[in-house]
Each structure stands twice: as C-alpha cells, then as structure tokens.
C-alpha cells in the first residue's frame, strides 16, 4: 500500500505519522495465546442455563401457555413468561425518543414472527433446559401472515404490529422519510432519457463465529454483573434498566470483547431476560444462542427494495433522480426506523443532482426482525445506485467511469438534504482507481479536482 501525499498537498498539514505505518494491535497477543476472555469464558459455580421456547408460527394468537410439566422437570429451577418481566414491551431507540415501544421481551398474547421468544426455561444443565422446553405447551391460533413489503403496505393486509397500527413506521414526515430538492418532475420533463429500475435484496445474516449471548452473575448485593458480547454496551444497559425497572447502578456490564459482530450484536435481546433469571433465582445464568438460533433468530441485515427513476442528458448529466426505498424491519422496529431514515439521507449517492425526490419506508412484515449490519441503511442503496449508474452510462453510450466524473459531487455543491458538500474526494479516488485498474479516462477528467471546480 502506498500513501499518496500529492492529493490535497496544499490544503493538508502533512504531519501524518500513523497512517501507512504498521502498529501492533493491542488485543492480538491475547488472541494468539488463547488468553482473550470472551463472555462465555466466564464460568461460575451453580450456573443455570437458559433455553428459550420459541414460536413455530409466523403470526399467531397465543390462547394459553402451560408451563406446569416443564416446571416439574428434573433440574428445572424457574420458568419465565411475559408476566415475570417488569416492563415487557420495549423498543431499543426509546433512549433517543424514537417510539412507540413495540416489542415484547417474552410474547404476550401474540407472536409476530417465527422464532419469537415465548417462554424462558432456567435449568441446572443445558440438557435439562432443552428437555423442559420441549414440555412447555403453548396453544396458538394461527393468523394470516405477510412476508412481502409491498403486500404489507396494501389496504387489507394482515396487521403485523398493533403498537404501530399500520404496517409502516410513522415518521414525523408521515408514512415515509422524505427528501425534496428542486423540481424532480421538471427535471424528468427536460431529460433526454428516463430510466426506472428496481433493485431488491434478501436478508443477510452476519454469521459471527461467536454466537450472541451473555453470562450473568449476581454480586450478592442486588447488583448484577453481565458479561456480554453486545456491540452496544450502554444502549443495552439503559434498555435493560427500563425493561427490568432497575436503576442503572444495579447493572454492571462487562464487555467490549466480541467474537465477530458486524452489526449483528447491537440489539438488546439476551441480557434483560438473563439478568431477570439471575435476579429471580439468585443464581448465575448463561444464555448463549445455539448456531441455529444465531442463523434464524438473531437479526439480519434488512431485506430492501429500491426503485430508482433517473432523468439523464445525452452529455452525461443526471438532471433528476427519484428514489423510493423500502426497508423490511420484520415484525419489530429495533433500529430499522433509523436505517430507513439513513437511506433517505444517503440518496442520491455521492453525485450532484439538481432535482431529487426521496421516499424511504420502514415496513413491518412477519419476518425475523432486522437490524444493523456494516454500512447500515446504505449498503443496499449503494449497490442499487452504482448498478443504476452503469446502466445509465450504457444507455447514453458513455464510459461508466467518465459518467461518474461528470456527476461526482464536489466541495461547495449543495446536497439534496441541504448540507453543503465539504471534504469530497470522490474525483481523486476515481483518478487513482483509473490508474490502478488501468481504465483510462479522458485527460480533462484526470485534471479535475474535488475542491476546484472546472479546471
């Protein structure tokens, strides 16, 4: 790797001492000797194992739950249902005033996705917990389910989540997050070509090597230490405080060492119920997802649908871009209202377009709740945008890289959401990419600059 100091040389103080220099990672010696302590490396005498009874249905009403046989099973110490959870209905982003609370820690009256937690069994051994979990009887009345975002938005679709009242997140801007810039219809009217395409993605599982989990130890003074692999330590602590109605000073979270996260460990899922189990039994509790749970239960990257309509001139200028984005939150919000909103801010991509119209919807379906993953809210959008850019270039017979130079945002350009562009370096990246990939572009593009227009 080479650090190119010639770019922006006159606007940058070139006192870079770290970039380009290999530095030992502080955590590596622990990794190579096997000494790094992950949460599951803590073991406490008398530790109980928590296994979750989960919904086998995508959408169902719970008529009754019978835990009597499970409670009698040898080795079982406690069985938890919704009524044991002090504040059972929560939503993660309530901490930043994004409600409503829409998700249950343990299902209460209804399940909204296949795999939803219904009953927690705490037992002396994993085996006893598994056997007892099999003895929990839940009587379900199966309801119609909806799995497709556009179906979910149609009138008459099954209502996924009563806490919302409709199958989309209601922003302060209405049924979707909106960006309006210029006059997109006027832009289409003067365009030489119009291209409308839709792009879709499936949910993507992070599949970390270490599954989601935590180990909780009562400290004996009504305080609980929770060893966890959460990627969102304080979000988890504060949400646990709300769910368990316990002041934060009773919760001692130890973490930061995560065996692979990639955004998949930012939800508040295992900690509250494990701490509740420790509180109600007075025993240490381990709640660790099996590999199957990690793949099926932990939140994936949301499925998305992105519809892009562009107006483009023969000379390569994009004059209008209209994007409609749909983010499949699954049955519950978690971080998806934020993800969909982030998408709205991200379009129309790193390009300067004078007329822009963006609508992004956060949609509820009876699928596994989705959440963050690397490039949360923008990765699928970028895929869609860049494929669209290639298609546009082909449509007007232009080199796809030169087409991007023409439309690249530069310092001083006003972005669609009305932030002036600063510190852009797309031009320079593409110039370097052109050289590195041996994909030559016309000299005028190689002479362009992000912060000096024209050249």
């Amino acid at each position, binding site marked *: 790797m080479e650090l190119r100091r010639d770019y922006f040389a006159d606007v940058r103080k070139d006192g870079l001492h770290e970039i380009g220099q290999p530095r030992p990672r502080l955590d590596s010696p622990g990794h190579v000797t096997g000494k790094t302590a992950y949460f599951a490396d803590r073991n406490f005498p008398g530790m109980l194992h928590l*296994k979750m009874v989960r919904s086998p249905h995508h959408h169902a009403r719970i008529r009754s739950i019978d835990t009597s046989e499970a409670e009698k099973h040898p080795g079982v110490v406690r069985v938890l249902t919704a009524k044991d959870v002090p504040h059972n209905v929560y939503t993660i982003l309530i901490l930043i005033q994004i409600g409503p609370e829409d998700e249950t820690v343990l299902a209460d009256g209804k399940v909204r996705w296949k795999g939803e937690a219904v009953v927690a069994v705490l037992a002396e*051994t994993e*085996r006893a917990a*598994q*056997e007892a979990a*099999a003895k929990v009887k839940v009587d379900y009345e199966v309801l119609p389910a909806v799995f497709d975002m556009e179906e979910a938005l149609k009138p008459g679709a099954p209502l996924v989540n009563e806490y919302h009242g409709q199958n989309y997140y209601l922003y302060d801007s209405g049924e979707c997050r909106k960006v309006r810039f210029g006059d997109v219809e006027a832009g289409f009217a003067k365009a030489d070509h119009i291209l409308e395409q839709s792009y879709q993605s499936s949910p993507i599982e992070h599949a970390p090597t270490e599954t989601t989990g935590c180990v909780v130890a009562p400290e004996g003074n009504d305080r609980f230490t929770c060893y966890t692999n959460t990627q969102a330590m304080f979000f988890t602590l504060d949400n646990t405080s709300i769910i368990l109605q316990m002041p934060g000073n009773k919760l001692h979270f130890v973490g930061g060492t995560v065996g692979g996260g990639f955004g998949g460990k930012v939800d508040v899922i295992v900690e509250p119920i494990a701490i509740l189990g420790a509180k109600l039994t007075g025993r240490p509790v381990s709640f660790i997802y*099996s*590999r*199957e749970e990690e793949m099926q239960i932990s939140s994936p990257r949301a499925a998305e649908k992105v519809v892009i309509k562009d107006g483009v001139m023969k000379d390569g200028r994009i004059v209008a871009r209209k994007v409609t984005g749909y983010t499949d939150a699954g049955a519950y919000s978690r971080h998806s209202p934020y993800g969909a909103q982030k998408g709205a801010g991200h379009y129309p991509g790193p390009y300067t377009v004078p007329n822009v119209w963006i609508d992004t919807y956060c949609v509820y379906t009876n699928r596994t709740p989705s959440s963050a993953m690397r490039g949360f809210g923008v990765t699928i959008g970028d895929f869609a945008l860049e494929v669209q850019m290639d298609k546009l270039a082909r449509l007007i017979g232009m080199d796809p890289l030169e087409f991007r130079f023409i439309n690249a945002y530069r310092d001083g350009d006003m972005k669609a959401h009305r932030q002036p562009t600063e510190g852009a370096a797309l031009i320079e990246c593409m110039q370097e990419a052109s050289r590195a990939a041996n994909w030559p572009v016309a000299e005028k593009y190689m002479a362009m600059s992000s912060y000096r227009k024209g050249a």
Partner: protein
Amino acid sequence: MTLALQTFSSVKDANAALLAAGARYIGGGTLVVRAANEGDISVSSLVRVTDPGLSRIAVSGGKVRLGASVTMAAIARQPELATLAPAARAVGGPAIRNMATVGGNLFAPAPYGDFAVALLALDATVVTGDSEMPIETFLAGRDTSRAVVTAVGFSLPRAESFRFLKVSRVKPKGVSVLSIAALLQRAADGTVTAARIALGCMADRPIRARSAEKALLGCKLTPQEIAPALAAASQGIAPITDPIASAWYRAEVLPVHLGRLLSN
C-alpha cells in the same frame, strides 16, 4: 435424563444395548454428538465399540474391506486406495476427516454422505453382524436399521474406470450442492459397456441414476453421445432443498456437472 456413553468391546454386546430406547451408536461422533449438541433430546445414550477390527483396512486380490470405524483421513492416506481418495477428501475439513467414519457416512443425511455416494457407485456390500447386503438395499432401509454396521466391502476399481465429483460453493471445502460417482467399464474403442452412476443430494440419501446408466451403454464419452444420458439424469430424482441450494437449482445443474464428469 442425561446423555451417557456405554463402551463395549464387542459388536454383539453393543447390538444388545442399542435395543434400548434413546440409544444411538457413536462412531466418529460427527452426526450423533452434533445432534445431541443441537438439542435432539431423543438421544439419551451413546453406544460405542472399541474392537480394533472395526478400524482395519484390508486390501487383497482386488477386494477391499473397510472396517466401519475407518476414518476418511485413513482412506485418503492409504496408497492402495488412491482411487477413492478424492471421495474421502470430499468429506469435511481435516479435523472432520480424522473423525468421520465409513459407517457413519452410510447414515449421513443429504447434503452429507459424499463417501457413501462413491460406495453406491462401487456396488459395495454392507456388513452388519452376521448378515451382508448390497448397499442399495441397506440405504433404502437405513432409517430402521438397528444393528451396528461393521464393515463395507467392494472390488477396487481401476483408476480409469472410477470418477467422482463433489460440487460445492466454497473452495476448497464446502457442503455439497451435489456429488456424483460413476463406475464405467469401457471397450478398447472407448464405448461404455457397463455404467453405474450414484448421485448425492438428489434425494435424502444417495441414489442411482438408472436411466442415465442405461442411456450411456454403447456410447462413447463425446458431448453428442452422452447427451441422452444427461437428459435422462433427472429421472427419478427428488433433490433436497437447504440453505446451500434449492431442489430446482440442484436439478438444473445436475446434467451440467454429470456432463463435465463424463467428458473429462
């Protein structure tokens, strides 16, 4: 109930113990310990046999006898079994191959059981206690089979007559999209005089491609002449659907891969 291991020095005693409810035989552990780890509470006791005879490889006069406890790694490193090494190496990674056994592979549900696909093409004999039966019969009834498999026997194929292919999406190791084993006898001019083709992932267990076998007879292995066999390959298949591939995809690519195997 807890999981308990019972160890026996003889197959006979193990067979008696296996009559108990919840008892399962453990070879390398790659199937049954996995099931227990994953919460299969129907497994309550594991039965193993320490008889060293079960780990013996015997090759003489063109006949091979593999004890049921012989591992994939042991087959892969046995020079006399070089023809079968690709099939043995197709199973798992190095650690799995040190554990997974011939006997276990006969029971591995699709998408696992690639070595059993090879054994089916070789028309192996499966030995359980005092009785022996053709592998095809054994595989058909394996769900209710209670007696410990002690060995498999087969005639060692000549290198040029045996072909094996495992297709996976991850290189160099991955779960099967499908696997194919073919035993072909050919005349001096290259014409196929006998063919036995076994398929993995085309049902819940290895199956034969009988129509394709028939269609190959009298053919030379040219693209034109094998075309009818490729067209017939899908007859009677019921491919599995799993996270690796759908039944539709597996059925679509089967003729492509069979074509590659036959024309190489």
